[in-house]
């Protein structure tokens, strides 16, 4: 926190709220709302291709699993700044936290939307109905807590906007506790999301079903967190015509690559140790998808492998996208493509399912635009611009 003083204070970007991006997002959200109306009146079967063999589809795998991994930027950066005491990254915390906030809140909403009997959801929080032995329960409680924690973590932004200095001062006294929780909780549930594959057992293809999958999920969540920060910084600077914080992103990319190396070591050691690497060379869809996933993680070294490459924002942007894609493929492969409950069941998302997922991401974009334009999130631009 000591380094905070030297950074530019966050400030609203300003500018019009109504533009091509927000308008498009608004239309997509309206389409989603209409589909969800049908879903809540006529049930999941009316708008999804879910069936007994595939009780979850892209609403869970993309909106929740991938969406929450994308939302790990806040936690990854906070961990770097507060746990490893790298104060220089502090200006990245708020924008990263904002993306996380939307990612997680919408993941929570997506879960409710996907629950067949959503009106029973309160049982989860009712101690007499809760089943503490369930992985899902751990994930649900942890994510709920984390959403609350993140809103508190992000609250100073609103306090500053509305001039509630006293509230901000009081909150800052216990902020260390909130930040610690905000680091612990995602580590818990991101790994637990991986534990689901352990529980699913043989239904998940051996290339993904492994006892170490909680560690794989945790590592990729952190990697994705940094990748999203790269992606988001590049997009924000491009969209708002701001200078990019290259002095932060370049070293951040190096940290990220270090974790990618650790991840690949664990990933392949596990495949070799379990003796299933041979399956990656079979002529199957799963093997193809496995190599696509791996290509993303290895490809990133071609894009931003050298120090010179890491100084180029275009390459950082592409590197970020590659790793986001890799982590997404990991989740998509294990939860849908390499997931087979037998009995000839198959699944491909319906158009309406896709449109709802698109709508969910549109809310994130719209929210990000509105909040960065009106609330102090991004660092104030230096006078020279």
């Amino acid at each position, binding site marked *: 926190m000591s380094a905070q003083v030297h950074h530019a204070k966050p400030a609203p970007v300003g500018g019009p709220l109504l533009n091509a991006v927000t308008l498009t997002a608004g239309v997509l959200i309206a389409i989603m709302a209409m589909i969800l109306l049908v879903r809540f009146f006529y049930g999941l079967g009316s708008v999804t*291709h879910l*069936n*007994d*063999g*595939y009780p979850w589809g892209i609403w869970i795998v993309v909106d929740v699993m991938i969406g929450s991994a994308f939302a790990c930027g806040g936690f990854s950066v906070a961990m770097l700044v507060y746990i490893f005491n790298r104060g220089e990254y502090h200006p990245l915390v708020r924008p990263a936290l904002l993306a996380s906030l939307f990612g997680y809140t919408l993941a929570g909403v997506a879960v409710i939307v996907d629950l067949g009997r959503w009106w029973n959801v309160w049982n989860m929080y009712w101690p007499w109905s809760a089943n503490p032995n369930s992985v899902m329960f751990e994930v649900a409680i942890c994510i709920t807590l984390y959403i609350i924690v993140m809103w508190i973590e992000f609250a100073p932004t609103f306090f500053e906007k509305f001039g509630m200095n006293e509230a901000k001062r009081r909150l800052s006294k216990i902020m260390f506790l909130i930040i610690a929780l905000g680091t612990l909780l995602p580590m818990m549930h991101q790994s637990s999301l991986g534990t689901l594959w352990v529980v699913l057992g043989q239904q998940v293809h051996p290339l993904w079903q492994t006892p170490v999958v909680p560690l794989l999920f945790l590592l990729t969540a952190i990697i994705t967190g940094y990748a999203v920060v790269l992606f988001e910084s*590049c*997009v924000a600077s*491009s969209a708002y015509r701001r200078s*990019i914080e290259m002095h932060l992103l370049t070293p951040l990319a190096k940290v990220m690559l270090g974790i990618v190396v650790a991840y690949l070591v664990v990933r392949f050691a596990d495949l070799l140790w379990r003796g299933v690497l041979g399956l990656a060379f079979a002529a199957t869809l799963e093997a193809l998808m496995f190599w696509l996933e791996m290509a993303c993680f290895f490809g990133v070294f071609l894009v931003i492998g050298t120090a010179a490459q890491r100084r*180029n*924002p*275009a*390459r950082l*942007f*592409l590197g970020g*996208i590659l790793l986001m894609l890799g982590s997404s493929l990991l989740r998509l492969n294990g939860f849908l493509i390499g997931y087979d409950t037998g*009995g*000839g*069941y*198959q*699944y*491909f*998302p*319906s*158009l309406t*399912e*896709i*449109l709802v997922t*698109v709508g969910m991401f549109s809310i994130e974009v719209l929210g990000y635009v509105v909040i960065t334009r009106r609330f102090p999130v991004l660092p104030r631009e230096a006078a020279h611009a």
Partner: protein
Amino acid sequence: MSTSIFDLDHERFVVAEERLHMPRREFLQFCATVAATLGLPAGAEAAVAEAVATARRPSVIWLHFQECTGCSESLLRAEHPTLEKLILDVISLDYHETLMAAAGHQAEAARKSAMAANKGKYILVIEGAIPTKENGIYCKVGGQTAIELTKECAADAAAVIAIGSCASWGGMPSTVPSVAGWDSSPTGSAGVAEILGKPVVTIPGCPPNPYNFLATVVHFLTFGTLPATDKLGRPLFAYGRLIHENCERRAHFDAGRFAMAFGDEGHRKGYCLYKLGCKGPETYANCPAIGFGDAGENNWPVGCGHPCIGCTEKGVGFTKPIHTVAKMLNVAPPLQYPRIDEPIGKGASFASAAALAAIAGAAAGGAAMLARNLGLSHQAAELEKAKEAKPKAEA
């Protein structure tokens, strides 16, 4: 305390053995059976054994009114070898018109002296319905009507137990003739609670299972209180569940396998008797759980192939015709059933595949444009830097 049950040479049990003329093993078996009937937790049989062995035998006054003595018979004729000994020894049966040797005024005197000697401590058991029409003149003992006797004996009783369906609510004698103009039974038969104007413990059944009665008494002996009851006064340990819930033929009901006529293939195969009029779905009793007559499994009406007539349930037994189909109390069939041909999912449709392709294309295009712009501005910045640092003109 719970370990004392293993101490078979304990003085109390030796005394009980002599008193009851039964081996200690059998005595303890009986205690365990009663504890299990009551649904007491493991270890409670020790408390029961202690209570029974210490011979704090409560005095019991047993009145008979409009009945067939089936309840008494079922208690005495139980197949368990020494059950009747226990009945006569667990309780001190001071007045029982069928069993006592005394007769006439001598018998009435015995009742009055037992009531006086155990004032406020005796248990009053009533078997049979109580006629109320014409001031109850249809049933008299020793010149007193059943109503008068009930009120007199209940006044100083520690507990009142109505045994059998007749005493519980009127039972068979209270059945209204199916003739136009009748709205009550010819003698206006009523249950004990109605006469006393307050709830009493009822052990309905025609006859009731002797263990349900014994367990109620032993509960009183062991804990000093009567067991918890439902709103009709029936002990919950015995009448807490529908017969349908624990029925051994329940699986046939759920699978839709029914006997359609006596002696048909389904009946011979032991299918569900619901369609023959079995009242199990609307009758609360533990018959399927403990059976009758200590004769082993399946020895109860449904087990023997006859539909339950609902004898423990007011408004069902002796009221509904035996072969009328029962009303389902707690197993309302669902409004819809899951499909049998569960769909196994569809492949990609043109629309969804096209949408995905469009999104992927748009994302790739957008990313490429953005990367290109970033690259160009990077190049420009590098050039700027190169210009400033003249010696390094290479970009």
